[in-house]
C-alpha cells in the first residue's frame, strides 16, 4: 500500500490480486446477495483507492482492509433496517438439523452452509474474518471495534454452532 501511495500502480494490482477472492467471499457470505456483495466489494476497494494519500501503516493492511469492509457492511445493514446485535446463543440461534438424520457428506456440507448463513451477523463476521482474512482475535476485535473478549466469544460461539451443524458436535 505504501508503494501504491507513492505512485506505483503495480503495487495496487498486487494487493488486489492477493485479497480479492477472500474479501469477496467475506462480503458475499456476509450479505448473501451476490449483487449487493459486488457493490459493497467495489466500494471497499474504492475506499482503499481514495485513502491512498493519507494511508499510514498503523496496522496490517489486511486488518485495515477488513475494517473498511466491516464498516460498510454495518452501514449496509443499518440502511436496510437491520441491526447487528449481539444475540444470545441459546435464544435466537437457529437449531441446526439433527446430524443423526443426515449421514451423507453433501448434506452435511449443505447444513454447514445453512448454519453459516444462520449465524448471528456479528458471530458470522468474526468467523469469516478469521477464516477469510486470517485475522487473529486481536485483529478481529480491532476490525469490528469490539474488545478482544467479545471478539473471542463471538468466534467461539460461531465455531460451536458450525461444528454442530457439520455433525461433529
Amino acid at each position: 500500500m505504501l508503494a501504491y501511495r507513492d505512485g506505483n500502480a503495480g503495487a495496487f494490482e498486487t494487493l488486489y490480486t492477493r485479497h480479492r477472492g477472500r474479501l469477496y467471499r467475506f462480503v458475499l457470505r456476509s450479505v448473501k446477495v451476490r449483487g449487493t456483495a459486488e457493490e459493497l466489494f467495489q466500494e471497499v476497494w474504492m475506499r482503499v483507492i481514495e485513502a491512498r494519500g493519507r494511508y499510514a501503516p498503523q496496522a496490517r493492511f489486511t486488518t485495515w482492509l477488513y475494517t473498511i469492509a466491516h464498516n460498510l457492511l454495518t452501514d449496509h445493514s443499518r440502511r436496510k433496517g437491520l441491526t447487528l446485535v449481539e444475540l444470545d446463543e441459546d435464544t435466537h440461534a437457529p437449531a441446526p438439523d439433527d446430524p443423526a438424520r443426515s449421514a451423507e457428506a453433501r448434506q452435511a456440507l449443505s447444513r454447514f452452509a445453512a448454519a453459516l448463513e444462520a449465524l448471528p451477523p456479528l458471530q458470522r463476521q468474526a468467523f469469516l474474518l478469521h477464516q477469510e482474512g486470517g485475522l487473529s482475535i486481536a485483529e478481529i476485535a480491532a476490525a469490528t471495534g469490539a474488545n478482544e473478549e467479545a471478539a473471542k466469544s463471538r468466534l467461539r460461539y460461531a465455531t460451536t454452532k458450525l461444528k454442530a451443524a457439520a455433525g461433529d458436535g
Partner: protein
Amino acid sequence: MADERDPDISRKYRELGAEEPPRALDERILAASRQELRKRNWYGPVAIAAVLTLVVAVTIQVERQKPDDEFLAQAPSPAPAQKEEAQPLKEQQQPLKAPAPKPISPPRGFTPDPRPAAPAPQSADALRNLAKSNQGQVLAEPVAPVDERSRAQVQARRDAGETRRMEAELQARPESAGIRGSASPAPASSPQAAPPVAAAARGAPSPQAKPAPEVMASRLVVNPERWLEQIAELRKEGKHDDADKLLAEFRKTYPDYRISDEMRAKVEKK
C-alpha cells in the same frame, strides 16, 4: 465448547467453495486505481508549470519597470546645456541648423507623468542672439553662470564650424588674404587647426594664452560685426572691389543678418 481455531471447521468452510469476483468488477477497480494515480500525477507538473510561469512573468515585469525608474529619475530637469553637449560633432558642424531636441521615447508601459515638462531647449536664433550678445563677455568672464556658459559654448561650437568653412573658402581665394590675416594655410579640419578653434569654442580663457593670429583671423571672419567693420575700413581706404567682394561674401555667409542703417551706410557702395 469448541475451540475458536478448529481445523475441522476451517476444512469444512473451505469445502463451501471459493467464489471469485467477476472479471468486469476486477477491471473496474483496477482502472479506478490507475485513474487515481493519473489524477494525482497531473497535479505536480501543473503546479510546477504554474510556479514557473509566475516567476517568469514577475521577472519580465521587473525588467520592464527598471527603465521606467531610470527614466523618471532623469526626467525632472534635463539641462539644455547637457543635451547640447551630447550633440554629435556632425550636428555641431551645421551651425545655423536649429537644434532638434532629441525626443526621449519612453519605455513600453510608461504612462506619461502629468507634471509640467522641463523647459524646452531654445531655438537656434535665440541661442545665436544670446551668444552674440555675450560674445564680448565670453572671453572676459572666467567663470560664467552655467547656463550662459553652456549657451556660449554651443554658439562657439557653431562659430567654430563656420570658421572652418570660411577658412576653407578663403584659402581657396588668395585675393581675400587680407581678411584672413595671418591665418594658417593648413586646412581647418586638420589637427593643427583644431586646438585654437577648440579653445575659442570652449570660451574659457587659457591663462597662458593670448589668442594666436589664426584665432584672431577666425574671429574676424566669424564675428559679423567685425567683418562689417573690416568692410567699412576697406571702403574707407578706397578698396571698393575688395569691399564689394567681402560684402557679397558676408551676405552669402549671413543671409539673414540685419545690418544696421549706420553700418549699411559704411559698408555699401555709395
